[in-house]
């Protein structure tokens, strides 16, 4: 029972801090804000240059070879500075699938491009109507010579408007159980017959899309893993998606922002920070957060010891997203009347308030956290079945 950092770990932490302080400079921060996806690519390329863009990849493919503790240190330092994580669709999701199930040719072609952020990826899982029942997907891929012809539609596709590639689950066979006959395939977004329809979110932003496939021709060699075994591939990926989803460091950072802001909000002479009701709501979150941090560390320790992030990672997802939303709610509360401010070009000095619109966007965007990646209800079903053994 020990969390003391070793001398090596402390040295590593210094290196991380030094790197982030240097590279995540004012210019980089401005680019991230103003350039959207291009700013993100720029940041990922800086990480690539340092060799740190893919902490979870095996060393032979360009990973860092970090220990679990090092990964934790990296994650904490990054989040505490409010630095966004890398866009996961390429570097985390499809890369993991290609490494585990891909052909040598796929690995050689795609992995270096992903590592260098040369391709922007998006995820084609959900479909209009499929929701949490992912296996009910209907997008069809029919064999035609050396190609597949894809017809159907994917939805909730984050950043599809920026994407060069999309990885999709498609149905290649209708005859068996719904989990069978699904195939995992990589599709060039420049292919003829692909149409991206924007979806404006409840946060008033355009991050989501519907992607239509009208007779899109895709080479059969773009299938990853066996034809018809896409469900197995997808399941392996889902567990990866859930680790780190607790977002402990992000929540910590939110709490820090909350305390700062609550100290400068005043109700009739009393700082919000000193309001007993507000203090208790902060305390309730922090108590759970302190616990969640160690729940995450326990999971990491299990993984470091060679274990696998099993259904327990569902707990991290549920508790983490609940706490994320709780902090987002507190931020809204701090903003008071200003929580309703929409994105605007107005100078905060004119508006009279700095963080209202940010609080709103974070809160609204945060609604998705309990829905995507397997809704929290589905996570509870998973725990119930696989951890508690209830049928």
């Amino acid at each position, binding site marked *: 029972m020990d969390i003391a950092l070793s001398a090596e770990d402390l040295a590593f932490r210094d290196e991380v801090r030094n790197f982030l302080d240097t590279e995540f400079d004012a210019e980089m921060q401005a680019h991230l804000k103003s350039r959207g996806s291009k700013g993100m690519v720029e940041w990922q390329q800086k990480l690539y240059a340092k060799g740190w863009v893919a902490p979870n990849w095996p060393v032979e493919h360009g990973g860092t070879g970090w220990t679990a503790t090092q990964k934790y240190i990296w994650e904490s330092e990054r989040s505490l500075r409010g630095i966004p994580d890398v866009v996961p669709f390429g570097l985390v999701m499809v890369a993991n699938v290609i490494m585990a199930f891909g052909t040598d040719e796929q690995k050689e072609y795609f992995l270096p491009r992903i590592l260098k952020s040369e391709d922007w990826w998006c995820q084609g899982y959900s479909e209009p109507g499929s929701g949490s029942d992912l296996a009910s997907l209907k997008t069809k891929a029919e064999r035609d010579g050396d190609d597949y012809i894809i017809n159907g539609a994917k939805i909730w596709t984050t950043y599809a408007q920026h994407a060069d590639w999309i990885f999709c689950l498609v149905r290649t066979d209708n005859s068996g159980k719904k989990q069978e006959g699904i195939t995992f395939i990589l599709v060039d977004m420049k292919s003829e017959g692909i149409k991206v329809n924007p979806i404006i979110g409840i946060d008033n932003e355009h991050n989501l899309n519907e992607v239509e496939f009208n007779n899109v021709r895709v080479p059969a060699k773009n299938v990853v893993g066996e034809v018809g075994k896409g469900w197995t591939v997808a399941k392996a990926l889902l567990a990866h998606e859930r680790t780190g989803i607790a977002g402990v460091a992000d929540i910590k950072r939110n709490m820090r922002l909350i305390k700062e802001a609550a100290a400068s909000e005043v109700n009739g002479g009393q700082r919000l920070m000193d309001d007993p009701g507000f203090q208790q709501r902060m305390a309730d979150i922090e108590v759970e957060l302190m616990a969640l941090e160690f729940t995450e560390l326990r999971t990491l320790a299990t993984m470091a010891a060679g274990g696998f992030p099993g259904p327990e990672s569902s707990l991290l997802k549920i508790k983490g997203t609940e706490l994320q939303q709780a902090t987002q709610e507190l931020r809204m509360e701090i903003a008071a009347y200003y929580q*309703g401010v929409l994105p605007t070009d107005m100078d905060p000095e004119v508006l009279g308030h700095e963080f209202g619109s940010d609080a709103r966007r974070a809160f609204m965007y945060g*609604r998705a956290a309990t829905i995507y990646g397997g809704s929290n209800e589905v996570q509870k079903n998973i725990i119930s079945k696989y951890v508690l053994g209830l049928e």
Partner: protein
Amino acid sequence: MNFDYTEEQQMVRDSIARFVQDDYDWDTRRAIVDSDEGMSRENWQTFAELGWLSIPFSEADGGFGGNIVDMSVVMEEMGKGLVVEPFFPTVVLFGGVVARAGDEAQRAEILESVIGGETLGAFAYVERQSRFAINDCKTTATANGDGYTLNGEKVVVFNGENADKLVVLARTSGGQFDEDGLSLFLVDANAEGVSKVCYPMMDAQRVANITFDNVQLGAGALLGSEGGALPVVNDVVSEALIALASEAVGIMGTLNAKTLEYTKTREQFGVAIGSFQALQHRMVDSMMAYEQAKSLLFKALCEYKIDPASAEATIHALKVLIDRNGKLIYGEAIQMHGGMGITDELDIGHYAKRLMMINATLGDGTFHRSKFIESTYAAA
């Protein structure tokens, strides 16, 4: 003991419901929200013609002479339809202040044109630093020979973009937090020295930050007694809180109904998601949250009707419950709608946003819980 609405109230209710049903479908509303003014002048005239704008005003002032229950009926129906026309800022706030504080001449001048739909109004009471403390006021009105000079800024003024007339809360004496020394002034939105920046809010309200730079007001601009504004404002706030709670109850009921309907038709894993027991029990919780909010609104209405002062603790409690149960209900509505729930396209998110702004208006749950505790346990 009865909780029925009168026949007249039922008629008003039906008339608003019919308007929403026939003339305020979702696409129409969206077009109004996206229009330049963010409201429909034509609808506003309809409201005037149907008499809705006259409801809270006394017959002497040319109004319908309605009581708090009449007001509640209107607001609940407006909530159900998510009506964006500025009924609350113009009639409840602006009209409420003028009706209470104005002398006969002022009431005659203003209320008739409010009732007639010619004047849109706004009540400017929030400042950058004030949060929910209405007494926290830095805007000043300095007496000069014939009147007052107004200086300062008000922010997030509801209907500030379209209002023709403003009531401005300003300090005629005392320090920033003093309860005495506050006065109310009627100010023309186009008067010299008045400037504003306008912006839309997430609930489709058009608000403004309004700056007063040496605005010259005649003596007749003063509403009520100099320095004695706070009790009047508190009365208006009490009524406004009940009005907002009524709107919230309308929204909560609508969100529950829409969500329930959705869970009956939306299929997942081959069955309607409403067949999942875990969701059923949560929908029962949402239903109970709605019924409890409605009950507490009824309590506030009954008490306020007998004696407004007796309803103080209940009104604080009501805002607390509306906040808490509102969060539960819109949270569940979004969650149960899944991906659709987080799109701008669906109405669910818009109902949620209005509920959120209601919670943030005139004090949120945390604020009113403290007030409730103060008013209930202080002497114990």
